[in-house]
Structures are given as structure tokens and as C-alpha cells.
């Protein structure tokens, strides 16, 4: 579904189009963003992003180990992640994973705790510990969706966890296709591990998820962090690819929310209010 994007919110924003590690000198890397075919080239260590249809060279940037581009004039800077400046953290990508579903569905899945016992069985959840207790959702002054006091029993919450415990989460939807998760570190209790999921909207029904991990190094090596993320995401992928329809319906009556979905209800409303339509099925009026 290569329909054209008309959402200014997305056209005038930065998006990841490649992991720098997947680029080789002088080997063109083809990808697609918002239905537009692109080629990323690395030549004498300079990176260039070119539109296939017009041949225009787009504005690009390198940050957090990724190549970023914007199809139009950027209205704002790339998301700032303060934890990426802390020297005692691993800063790694969890791998760029293509998923045949709207990126908005991928973001919503990332916000969802109820599926842990069924999809991440034995890791992030386990029957019969299935209850999602009430948590708080608000829209921040920066216009982000913030969910706090999220608690869930997890048998193996992180690569170093030895036993099950109730884990506390904070979720934050920063932009329509970007969501972050903050999780208490098992060793340094006062600090949080951060996973930011940057979703590249390939087209309305396809995305590439680029999870960016900022984990405290203490007691953990980078490869373990990365492989844990890949294990978890590999469990989500087949479920996401079996969601019908592939785009996220914004009509409140398209699907049946329950109290556990408070954050996704807010997310869908927030998308509606911001007139985001790309990757969504707009609400019937």
C-alpha cells in the first residue's frame, strides 16, 4: 500500500531509515519511508539519502548510530534521549526488524502489558499472573502520552534477572511513531533502563522497528542486551502480522478496549487529535 502521506506531522519530522552498521562503503541500501522509495549511500564515509522518484538529495543526519532523514523541512529536531549521554550505559540497537503491519500497531503493542503472559511466556509474563492493575495515563505539557505506575509480574524481566518479580514500567509516546519504555534497573534501584522504539513507517501497512537500548552496563554485556531484545521482538512479530486490518483503526468502536488498554485508548485519541492518518483507519464521523 504505497499511498502518499499527507500528514505534515510526519512529513516534516525526522525518521530513521537505516542502522549505520548495515551500510557498506559504496553499496547502495534501498529502503522506503512513508511510501517513498529511497536509497542510502555511504561514500568516503559521507552518507547521502536520495529519493528514487525525483532524484533529490534529502536532508539527513546521523544520531544514536542510525541514519535519519526528513522528506520535507524538519519542524523540530531529532528526539533527544538524555540517557544516551551517560557513560555507564550500553547504547545499542536491538536490530532493525521489518514487520508487515502499520507502525502504529507496533507502537500500540509496545505499550501493552496484557499480552506478556501469552506472547512472552516465561519471560515477561506467565499464566496465571495475568492481571493488569490500574495505572495512570496523562498527556504531558510537552504533548506526550505518559503512562506511569504500570506494574506487572515478570518471571525473567531482564537478561540478568534470576527470579520473577513485579516490575515497574513507565511508557511514553513521544511522537506518533516513537515510544519509550523506562524500566527499573535490578541492580541500581534508583535508575532506569530505557528502550526507545523508533518505528520507520515504510508504508501504511509495513514498518521497520528500530529499538534503541540504553541499559546500565553493570552486570550486563551489550550482546546479551541485544539478543534479549531480539528474542522478545521475535515473539511479537507473528502476532503483529496477524492483526486485521493491518492499519490501526481510530474509530473507538472498531475494537473493544478494556481498562487495561487505557494507554492505547489515549494513544488512539491523541493520534486522532493530531490528525495523524498515515497507517491509521480514520474514525467515521
Amino acid at each position: 500500500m504505497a499511498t502518499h502521506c499527507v500528514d505534515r506531522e510526519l512529513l516534516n519530522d525526522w525518521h530513521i531509515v537505516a542502522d549505520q552498521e548495515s551500510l557498506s562503503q559504496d553499496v547502495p541500501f534501498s529502503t522506503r519511508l512513508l511510501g517513498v522509495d529511497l536509497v542510502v549511500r555511504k561514500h568516503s564515509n559521507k552518507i547521502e539519502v536520495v529519493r528514487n522518484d525525483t532524484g533529490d538529495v534529502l536532508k539527513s543526519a546521523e544520531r544514536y548510530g542510525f541514519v535519519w532523514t526528513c522528506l520535507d523541512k524538519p519542524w523540530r529536531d531529532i528526539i533527544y534521549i538524555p540517557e544516551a549521554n551517560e557513560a555507564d550505559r550500553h547504547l545499542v540497537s536491538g536490530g532493525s526488524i521489518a514487520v508487515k503491519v502499520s507502525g502504529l500497531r507496533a507502537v500500540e503493542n509496545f505499550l501493552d502489558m496484557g499480552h506478556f503472559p501469552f506472547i512472552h511466556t516465561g519471560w515477561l509474563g506467565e499464566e496465571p499472573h495475568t492481571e493488569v492493575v490500574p495505572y495512570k495515563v496523562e498527556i504531558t505539557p510537552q504533548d506526550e502520552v505518559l503512562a506511569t505506575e504500570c506494574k506487572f509480574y515478570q518471571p525473567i524481566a531482564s537478561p540478568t534477572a534470576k527470579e520473577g518479580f513485579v516490575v515497574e514500567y513507565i511508557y511514553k509516546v513521544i511522537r506518533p511513531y516513537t515510544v519509550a519504555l523506562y524500566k527499573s534497573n535490578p541492580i541500581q534501584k534508583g535508575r532506569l533502563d530505557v528502550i526507545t522504539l523508533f518505528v520507520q513507517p515504510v508504508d501504511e501497512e509495513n514498518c521497520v522497528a528500530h529499538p534503541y537500548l540504553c541499559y546500565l552496563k553493570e552486570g550486563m554485556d551489550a550482546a546479551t542486551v541485544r539478543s534479549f531484545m531480539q528474542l522478545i521482538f521475535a515473539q511479537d512479530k507473528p502476532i503483529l502480522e496477524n492483526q486485521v486490518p493491518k492499519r490501526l483503526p481510530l474509530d473507538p468502536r472498531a475494537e473493544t478496549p478494556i481498562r487495561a488498554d487505557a494507554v492505547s485508548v489515549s494513544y488512539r485519541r491523541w493520534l486522532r487529535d493530531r490528525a495523524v492518518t498515515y497507517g491509521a483507519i480514520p474514525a467515521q464521523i
Partner: protein
Amino acid sequence: MLEEARSRWHPIAAAHDLPFRHVFHGQLLGREFAVWRADDGYVNIWENRCLHRGVRLSIGINDGRELKCQYHGWRYSNRTAGCTYIPAHPADAPARTITNRTFPAVERYGLVWSSEEPRGEVPEIAGLAEGKLLALRGIAVNAPADKVVERLRAYRFQPNGAIDGEGADILVEAAQDFAVALRSRASSAETQGVFFVQPVDSNRSVIRGVLDQEAEGAARIAILRHHNERLSKLRDEVERDVANAPAPAPLEPVYERVSAELAEMPEVTTHGRKAALRVSVARKWQAADGIAGFELRPIKGILPTFQPGAHIDVHMPNGEIRQYSITNGPGETDSFTIGVKLERDSKGGSKCMHETVREGDVLAISEPRNNFPLRRDAIKTLFVAGGIGITPLLAMAQALKNQELAHELHYFAQGEEHLAFADRLKHLGDALKPHLGLSPDATGAELRQLLAGYRNGMHLYICGPGPMLEAARKIAAEQGWPDSAVHFEYFKNTNKIDDSSSFEVALARSCVTLQVPAGKTIMQVMRESGIDVPSSCEQGACGTCVATLIEGEPDHQDVYLNDAERKAGTKIMTCVSRAKSARLVLDI
């Protein structure tokens, strides 16, 4: 042609596509189906989409009674497609109206038939005798149905009896939009083959052939291979025919919207004391000494979804209304089974059921209501049943057994002959622990023993006669069980109701203030003002008429709320409870 096709019956699977506990992914006219056979034989054809987040149910789990969605473990019942459990909220009973879209299913000629909006019946094919047929393997073709039918008219095959020969005579006996009937003759051998074409989508079809003779062993394999090869060749030809023409656009299925009410996830549904369902007594038997079992079947249509712990109101021929728990296991949705104990001091309820109601009688019942919901997130669940108190707990134990969750059912009764529903009990295996012929003191000692060792995450469900229930609750509290882990249901409220107070009730959302005089209940006064209040037992035992209390000091006279709930002072049973303060404010 495809528009018209929506009102016709089409085969969507072969009967052999539905093996034990499988979920088959079917498709018709662009719409996907999750097709599954329950252990009782019923074929379910549902929209292939969980109502919660749209995940395909064809990747779900068929446990023989219910279909469980992979994503969040929502469970949908055999036959009704109603949701019976939402694991994220284990303490709640799901709204009964969360029901997936179902499509009709008919098994005929070794095929499973369905339709979006059927008019008429599954086509009658002369010469195809049920049970003596051979359904061929379905052949998927990337072409519109009419192109496939066109080619099928010239399909050539050997009769079963001369499968290795060549050059049989073929007669086209009938040809329609979605089927071709052919007869193949070679000397004395003769076989009729009917080839139905299932319109999967605008440009996709499946050929489902049926032969009028069955065959066994090697002969069967040879016949299947013969048609498989020839139909595959035919498929290649059709696909070549259409390769150059532009493919028609795929059909877009229309998904029905959920109700506005469901989109908001209401906490409680409201309905009065109504008996919308008509059932007939399909079977009445002695389920135990002094207990009659009744199997109630719908007069027409299907019964609504129930959850373990739910009860129905039975409206009796003598005008009495009583509540009985549904004892069914999950997915047993073709009838409701209840147990009625003959009460010695019966005021006409159980006496009428025992003496007057007979097999074949029609009764009016309410929709099932669940005020005794079962959590399924316990590390272990203990059920304590006394006498006829077995009925709701029996439904619960069968549900946990089905999901292989740890549980024990402690059944206190006078003797072996008093254990009701032996057939159902038998299936529970070792989880059933009968305690027979114990005195009240001995019962207390036994309860003390089995309620020792409470651990966080355990849950206890009690149902039985008042004194035993009181004793069990007291012992549980002494043994460290918190109120939140102890769930109970009284048969009736034996408290003497004091209705001498008079007070004012303000209904916050309705913006009305009512005066409740002595001798009348809050519920009666509300109903007199035209406010619909759901109710069932109307004596403070079942919990149906619960209202949220915003302000004021309640005078609880029910037996539904536990001590913590009473102390919290946020709920009130409007059928019996009253006010200690001059005014109550309810969230109604």
C-alpha cells in the same frame, strides 16, 4: 455475480479440514473465517478476528470447548462465540455482549458450508447420498470463480472403477454459477463427480470436488491422486487463461462496529428482573438424594453466553422466581444444567420444581448473570462446597480443570448418595475431595486443616448453607486469608430485614431525590419513579442490584458484601439495605 454470491451457500472447507482441536483458516468472498469443531461436534464459523485487538482467531487455541485468542488469552465459547474470560481483569465477569460475529455452518457432502447472508438452503444434489461420498482435496486456483467453472465443464476424469484406464465418456449433467456436475462412464464403471467452486476472493477460488462413491485403502489413494493431478493441470490452464487480463480488485470485507456501549467498556449492565428466554426441560433426573437435575434447552436459537459462577432466575409455573447456578463446564452451551434441592420448608419454589415441572415443560428464565466471578490468575484455588452449594463451584472447577490450573474442590455432604452430578464430578479426577457425614464440629476441624497454609496468590470460593459458610469465612480469616482472597455466595439471606427506617436517596447521575419510607426498599422506590434497576434474588444474596454509594452511611442488611467491602462503604444492595444517615447519594 459476486454480489449475488453473498446470499448463497458455499463450501468453505472439507469436513476433514477440521481435525481434533484444530482451527482452520477459511475464506469466502474476501472475508476470513476461523473455523473450528468443538469436542461436542459443533462446527463454529466465526469472523477471523478477536474483538479486542483484531488478531486472527485462526492462530488461536481450540481447547475443545472454547477458543482462546493468542494475544491476550480472551476466551470465546463454543456455539455462542461470547467472551467468557478476560485474563487482564480476572476479578470481572466480561460483559455478556462481547460476542464475536458468527456465520451459519452446515455439514453436507463431506464439506462444510457457510454464507454471509444465506437465503434458502444448502443446494440439494440428486445422486449424492450422504455418508457414501469421497471428498477430494481442495485445489486453490488464482482465478475468478466463473473462469474456473468454465474450464470445469470440460474436465475429464476416469470413473472410480476404471481409474487406470483412459478415454472415459464425460457427460455434463448440470452447470451453474458455482458448480458443475459431471458423469464419467467407461464400460460398466460409472462415477458422478460434483465440483463446487468456492469464491475465496474476486481472483481466488478453491475447487471442492465430491464423488458419489467412497473407496478405501489403495483404491482411495489412487482416485485422490488421479483427480489431484488432473485438477492441478486444470488449475494451470485457468491461471494461464487469466494471466494476461488485469486481476479484479480484491474484495474488502466490512467489519461490523462494536456497540457504543462496548467501546466504552461499561462496568455493569442494567436490566430489570426480566425473563427473556424460553427453555424446555429436556431432561429431569435425580442428581442426588433430594436433588433434582434439570437440563434446559432453548426453544429456538441458542442460549446466551454464561461464565462459571453465573446463575439464572427461573420463573416457575406457580409464579415464584428462584435463582439457580449453572453447573455447565466451559463451552457446553447447548443447554443449561441446574440442580434444585427440595427444601423442607419450601415456600413453593423447590417444591414446584420437584413436583410440578416435568420433562417437556417450558420455563421462562432470565439471561445468566454473574455476581460470583471466578479469577483464573490464582496460584491455587480452593473450592469449599456444602450440599447444594456445589452447583456454582462445579462450573468453576470444570473451567479450571479445562485450563489445567491448580485447584481442589472440597465437597461436604451427608453421604455418598448426597453428592450431586456424579458424572461431572468424575471428570474432575483427583481435584475432587469429598468430606462425608461430618458433624458441625468435625467440619470445622476439617476446614481448619484444609485452610491452613495460605500463600499470597491463593483464592478461596465458598458456597453452602449459611452456618457452614459463616464458619468457613471465620476460619479462613483466622488462618490469615485476606478478605480479597475469599469469595462466597449465600443461597439466601437469613438475616431478619429491618425496614423501619425512613431516609432520603439522591441519585447523582439521574438528578433526582427520592424519599424511602419505612416498609419500602430503595429499589421499590426507584422503580416507582421509572428507574430501571437490575435485580435477581431481591433478598440481598445475589449481588445483582448493587449500586455505588457516593455519600452517606449505609445500613447493610445483605449477605453479599464481605467485611472489607462493607467497611469501605462504597457499595450498597438496593433490595434490602438502607441508610443510617438521613441521606444517601448513589451513582445512578
